[in-house]
């Protein structure tokens, strides 16, 4: 697995930085325009969650390059309050009803693989992968 | 239909003025406002229903809940100026005998 590239998220402006880095990697790996746009939107959502709920954290990118599959993995980590009820935040209409964007269900739909680990008062790690077709 | 709720506080006295209709749609809002008042202890709460044209059984439930909550917190709840149609509901259900209710004065008698 290749080296990680990371962007720290502290200010709202850092979300733009994360999008930029993610898009550069996606373009370089050969993702089409639509997938590039999806990856950038997913990064926005993840980074924005960190900025809004955890205060600070980071978004890291990895290129996955094996014989079977090529793809891009993004990992958003924070040391925030954690998600108590993951089932609830993954439910449609839960985050969006409070007007905070498409939320995690949206990210899951934009990406091919999606996983959350979270512990109360420890933090949250969200991993999402988009495969190159 | 709409329900307008106006709350006036003066020391231990809380006067609540309702205007509109009390039904399944407006009841949650009324329940919330009443609960805010009935959980305080030692209050004298008076609800004025003069401008309430319609109330269905959902409204009765709200007032029973409020009455129970007021009793638990040593507060009192009183309903005043009920129109005939609304008062009839309290009368049929026997609630007029366990609640402090003063209907609209008509022809000099209550």
């Amino acid at each position, binding site marked *: 697995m290749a080296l990680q590239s990371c962007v720290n998220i502290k200010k709202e402006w850092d979300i733009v930085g994360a999008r930029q880095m993610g898009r550069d990697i996606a373009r370089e790996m050969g993702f*089409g*325009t*639509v997938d590039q*746009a*999806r990856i*950038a*939107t997913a990064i926005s959502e993840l980074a924005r969650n960190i900025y809004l709920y955890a205060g600070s954290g980071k978004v890291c990118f990895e290129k996955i390059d094996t014989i079977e599959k090529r793809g891009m993995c993004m990992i958003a980590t924070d040391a925030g309050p954690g998600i108590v009820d993951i089932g609830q935040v993954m439910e*449609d*209409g839960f985050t*969006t009803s409070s007007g905070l*964007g*498409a939320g995690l*269900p*949206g990210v899951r*739909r*934009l990406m091919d693989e999606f996983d959350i680990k979270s512990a109360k008062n420890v933090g949250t790690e969200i991993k999402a992968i988009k495969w190159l077709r | 239909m709409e329900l307008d709720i106006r709350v006036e506080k003066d020391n231990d006295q809380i006067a609540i003025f309702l205007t509109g209709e009390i039904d*399944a749609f407006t009841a949650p809002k009324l*329940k919330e406002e009443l609960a805010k008042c009935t959980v305080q202890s030692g209050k004298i709460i008076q609800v004025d229903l003069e401008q309430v044209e*319609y109330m*269905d*059984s*959902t409204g*009765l*439930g*709200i007032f*029973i*809940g409020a009455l*129970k*909550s007021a009793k638990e917190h040593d507060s009192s709840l009183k309903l005043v100026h009920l129109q005939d*149609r609304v008062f009839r509901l309290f009368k*049929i*259900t*026997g*609630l007029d*005998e*366990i609640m402090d209710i003063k209907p609209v004065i008509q022809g000099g008698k209550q």
Partner: protein
Amino acid sequence: MDVVKSDAANYKNFLKEFIETQNERALYGAEQIIKTFIKRNISPEEIVNLHILAFAELYPNITPEVHRAMNFLLETMISYGMALQEYQALREKQLELQSEISVAASMQETLLLTEKPCISGLDIGVISIPAQQMNGDYHHFMKGKDGSLGIAIADVIGKGVPAALCMSMIKYSVDSFPEEAMSPQMILNSLNRVVERNVDPSMFITMFYGQYHPDSEMLTYASAGHEPGFHYCAETDTFSEIKAKGLVLGVLPDTEYQQYERKINKGDMIILLTDGVTECRNGEEFIESDEVLERIHEFRHLPAQEMVEKVYRYFERMQDFHLRDDFTLLIFKKRV
């Protein structure tokens, strides 16, 4: 879902035709393609992308500004597409819930099923229609060993699923009472304790319980805050309200209900109802209970079942076929 090659080619042809001729036919063709895209859940960003690719193939020399502008549109469509997908997922969930509720409703129907008893000399008619899928009204007939007929009619405050759940509890409580304890007064006393212990404070139930004794021709009854019924006296051709004082079930644990009785003569009718009947509205106007009685009077020569159905149809039409509350009307006529 992805756009397939043939769609892409069709789309490109219609786009070309439209740019060259501004022909309505091309637009109609595009409309048909888009409809199939909607059916196959193709996202807006895919369609914008299809457009960009088709345009670039037709006009390879477009300026970078135009190309970027179209990519900009594609980016903005991603969020729109996410919102659309969420909406679709929620809609599917709603359909699931709806079908669950209709299963629950038919279960309730089976649970609360009560058979209209045949008692010689009595003609009984009853109709109970829920405003939503599940019924918060309840009626029940019980034939006693002594030949008496017990009739319960009840209304849970509120409508829908919570009211319906509450009703099932009531029915099973009544069923579990021993027959010796079956006087209207005793039944209400016991039920009140059950409801008081088991139901949320802001929820309550009104109930009228009557027991008709064919031998003595007497109706004994008690009411827990229920909408008063009516007694039609054939001899005087008048209606009188069946007044009975009593607090609704579930408010105070030790309520004692009073029992009343009245004689039922040949040709008399007892009319029991829920507030869904008296709270019918004609536009913004409420109907008066007189209007219910006028209809009943008008139909009084019909069999009881036909009467209740006709009254229901009348008020259903008056309310533009949209009930605001569950509607239950029960009539029993003493024929001989």
